[in-house]
């Protein structure tokens, strides 16, 4: 069966520090991969998605970047965090035209 791992669950980082969130998927190949951000009490904002290794589509120009070094690995990064980067980050995968499966999320607080 397929599983998705996202870590860490919570993170407190100072302003200006770097960020690296990792997401890995098991039990499937060539999945579409997604990074979303969710502000408190709000919907999901699509940040990046990838339909294949090295293929990254950015939806919102901002302080973040994403990479897909391996088929089932998706990394969200920042060189210098801003206060506005705080939020709940969710990784997800899906096959084309099917439902998405989500990780448990990372609560990021930038202080």
């Amino acid at each position: 069966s397929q599983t998705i791992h996202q870590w860490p669950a919570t993170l407190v980082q100072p302003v200006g520090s770097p960020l690296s969130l990792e997401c890995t998927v098991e039990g499937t190949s060539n999945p579409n991969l997604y990074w979303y951000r969710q502000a408190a009490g709000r919907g999901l904002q699509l940040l990046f998605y990838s339909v294949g290794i090295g293929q990254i589509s950015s939806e919102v120009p901002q302080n973040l970047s994403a990479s897909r070094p391996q088929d089932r690995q998706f990394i969200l990064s920042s060189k210098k965090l801003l206060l506005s980067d705080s939020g709940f980050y969710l990784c997800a995968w899906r096959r084309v035209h099917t439902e998405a499966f989500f990780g448990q999320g990372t609560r990021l607080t930038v202080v």
Partner: protein
Amino acid sequence: SQQGEEDPQALSIQEGENATMNCSYKTSINNLQWYRQNSGRGLVHLILIRSNEREKHSGRLRVTLDTSKKSSSLLITASRAADTASYFCATVNSSGNTGKLIFGQGTTLQVKP
């Protein structure tokens, strides 16, 4: 532009009542999906309805899709306190890049025991 806008934003009902949530979208879609999110957790897929389907059932869930109005509804019958959560619709475009999965702002449902 954002797809999948839900209404109402918040809904509070008594246990046993039915809950109806609506979703509107802007472009042609391949399918529309409904998800549930418990507070502080990841989303869980509930039901997927394809653009050539008009209604779909899963247990106490009933989803309708009206592509002419670009809208969908999620009905939860005989609600339970455990149904308390946020519910989101998400759409996949039928043309262009079908990799994008866009979510709406969600409906927060509170079911009072």
